[in-house]
């Protein structure tokens, strides 16, 4: 499944980049994140609570950064699972920051392989949830940066 989205933040690109790498601050902006810890400078472990339809899932997982090209581009992988909904996710992601008039455009692309009960909701529900979470994330980010 592919999830693609972008939004504009009224802040200079460097500020946005620095903020994204300030893990404690960033994690406050990601809806559902309960904890994040850095394992090393490329690996983070965390817990995310997600509600899709009637199912509440608590994903434990690892984010590994594969490519970091400050202040423009990052790429990496996410692996996690949720026992209670018998679901798991493996994903690769790419995020880019591009200066635009009046701020910075943040764009991301995720190729996610979702399995188990959550996946059975079908593409439309998952994509809609992802859109909603992105909008919330953008709103939180703007509140911090603009």
């Amino acid at each position, binding site marked *: *499944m592919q999830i693609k989205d972008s939004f504009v933040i009224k802040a200079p690109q460097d500020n946005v980049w620095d903020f994204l790498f300030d893990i404690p601050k960033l994690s406050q902006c990601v809806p559902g994140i309960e904890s994040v810890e850095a394992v090393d400078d490329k690996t983070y472990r965390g817990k995310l609570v997600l509600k899709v339809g009637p199912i509440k899932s608590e994903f434990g997982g690892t984010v590994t950064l594969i490519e970091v090209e400050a202040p423009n581009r990052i790429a990496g992988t996410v692996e996690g699972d949720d*026992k209670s909904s018998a679901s*798991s996710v493996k994903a690769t992601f790419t995020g880019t920051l591009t200066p635009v008039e009046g701020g910075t455009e943040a764009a991301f692309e995720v190729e996610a*392989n979702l*399995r188990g*009960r959550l996946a059975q909701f079908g*593409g439309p*529900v998952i994509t809609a949830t992802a859109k909603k979470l992105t909008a919330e994330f953008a709103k939180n980010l703007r509140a911090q940066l603009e």
Partner: protein
Amino acid sequence: MIGESVPMLDSVARVMGTVDYMINLRLPKMLFGKIVRSQAPHAKSLKVDVTNAMRIPGVVAILTGEDLGANAFYGVAIKDQGVVAVDRVRYVGEPIAAIAAESLDAAEQAAVLIDIEYHELPAVFDAQDAIQAGAPNLHEKFPNNIFKHAKLRHGDMDAAFAEADEIFEDTFTSPVAQQASLEPHVSAAQWDGEHLTIWTASQAPFMVRKSLSEIFGIAPEAVRVIVPSLGGGYGGKGHIRIEPLVAAMARKTNGRPVKFVLSRAEEFVTVTKHAASITLKTGVKRDGTFTARQATLYWNGGAYADASPMLVPAGMVRAVGPYRIPAVHVDSYGVYTNLPPAGAYRGAMSSQTTWAYESQMDIIARKMGWDPFEFRMKNLFVSGEHFATGEELHDVHFVECLEVSAKGLGVPSPLTPLPKGEGQGMRVGRGYGVMMKSTVATSKSQARLKLKDDGTVTLYTSTVEMGQGGHTTMAQITAETLGVPLRAIKIIGPDTAITPFDSTTSASRSTSMMGNAVIAACGTMKKKLFELGSPLLETPVDGLRTENGFVVADEISISFGDILKRNDLNTVEESGEYSTSFGIDPETGQGVATPHWHQGAGAAEVEVDTETGRITILKYSAAAFAGRVVNPRMAQLQNDGNVIFGLGPTLMEEIVYDGGQPINPNLADYSIPSIRDIPAELISICIESGEGEMHGIGEMTLPPVAPAIANAIEDAVGVRIKDLPITAEKILRALREKSQR
């Protein structure tokens, strides 16, 4: 009685909601089952740890691969499927463990605590990818993933193609779909020592009995299979599915019964309709006749062979079509992939093959400048001709089927041009489809009748009632043949401990096969009654007949009940049997493929909105050859139901996978036809013949639906869709491509 539209015997119970479906079954001390399934499409070195799950209060037992003996593999012809996975998983949704608990809650809590570890392997999901060199291999015994190659060889292909003026080659595809019966798979099992009783929603109780006796190493008689009314089957309950797992689970519960009810999402990973890719190369002459047809079929069998080793050869003979073609070669391949196992789907294999050959009929006709209706009429088989298997065709009525369905559209002649639609961008078109389908070549049905001294007749039959009206049909045949009122008849079955053998309730065979077994049983019962009644009526046996529960001589009569009483008998039991034994050579496909060829046709009138690609089926008219109709109303409902069912795979049904994970396994994202999808005008007609043989009609009007609609769409807007389902999006894309050309 035969030929009368009596209401279904249980019609009141159906309307009142009091039919005892499996889902309502409650047994004393019954436990609830839950299956833990693979999330990986392909993995090895499977390790399952149940320690934490066993600690949940209420959990009684957990079944894993470690519990299984060497015989715990099953399949209709290739025993490749484990009762639960052993060491390896091959599709998302494959059972890895099962839990029996005091409550479903406890079972579900335990399910998340089962720790599963495996090493993932590369997976392959498409049949044609799976046969490429270097593709992931699923079963070592089949290194190229092909588990079945069925061949039909008839005539000299090179010479026949050389005679052709034009050669057409087209590929048609159908995606994976689901039978989607309203009732899911449900089974409950209980062991008493070495005796197993299983209550199950199955179309084939004796097949279930045989498989379970092999898996558990007990005599067939030690397995009792009880089948209540089914909430639909459509082939999805046609072989053996969850019964081995349910019985193996029950073996660990110290004699307590355990019941499993699958969720809708589980249904989608339990059995599917084969995805198929069918390439037809067909040679025609300018005079409108065929010279040759080469058909190559790839059936996506999923991870286990299941019933495919039988279905792939059936698909082979069902791929030729109802036309005289001097030279025919067919290669039909069953291929393993990392998808759930595929099985029979109403109109098995014909739904995919008719889509191919009837779509190509119109492609040929249009290119050659012939009318598609006339082209068909010119080439359709008639009785006495020979099919590509070498067998002579008897009692075939394809011409009438096509004519009658065309007439149902209400136009003076199928050749009358249509007004091309009203309103901006709306176009109307007309299309036809004809199908020819084999049934089970070798099968057997037995029936037993018990007459009591109160005049009541009990029919013991293993025909499964699944909403099709099979039991009502058998009651009508009994009433007519034995000469008793319908109200005196009671039906018992199926229960393998009580009711006699029947191969299966599928392939539209019951009315013909079980019907003839019932007729045979009625014959012996009548003979017995005449023998017993002859001295009482002081009339020789050949001067007697039966009527309304009486044996009648010229001027006097005596009731069946009184005959028994006067002979000091409480009951009389008589049996009947009917069987067919045909087959084709595995290397050449020559022989006799079926005791009877099923025949159906359809005609569609559709409207296409060229701005949106949206299709509306304005009229649909279907015809099936029935021989002799037992119950006209029920037959019509079957034929109508076939058309409505067929609209699903034609217009909307497709299981979508992402890395082997189905992402629409629910009836919100996977649409099936609803009342709103039914054509405004839907007609279906049964064609009868003077010979009066009864034939099944459970599928005949289904396979023509998809090609008839696709052909009508091309007639309307000039685009050809070759991949099912025909969505508005596909039509719109094709229209845009056409306008850019």
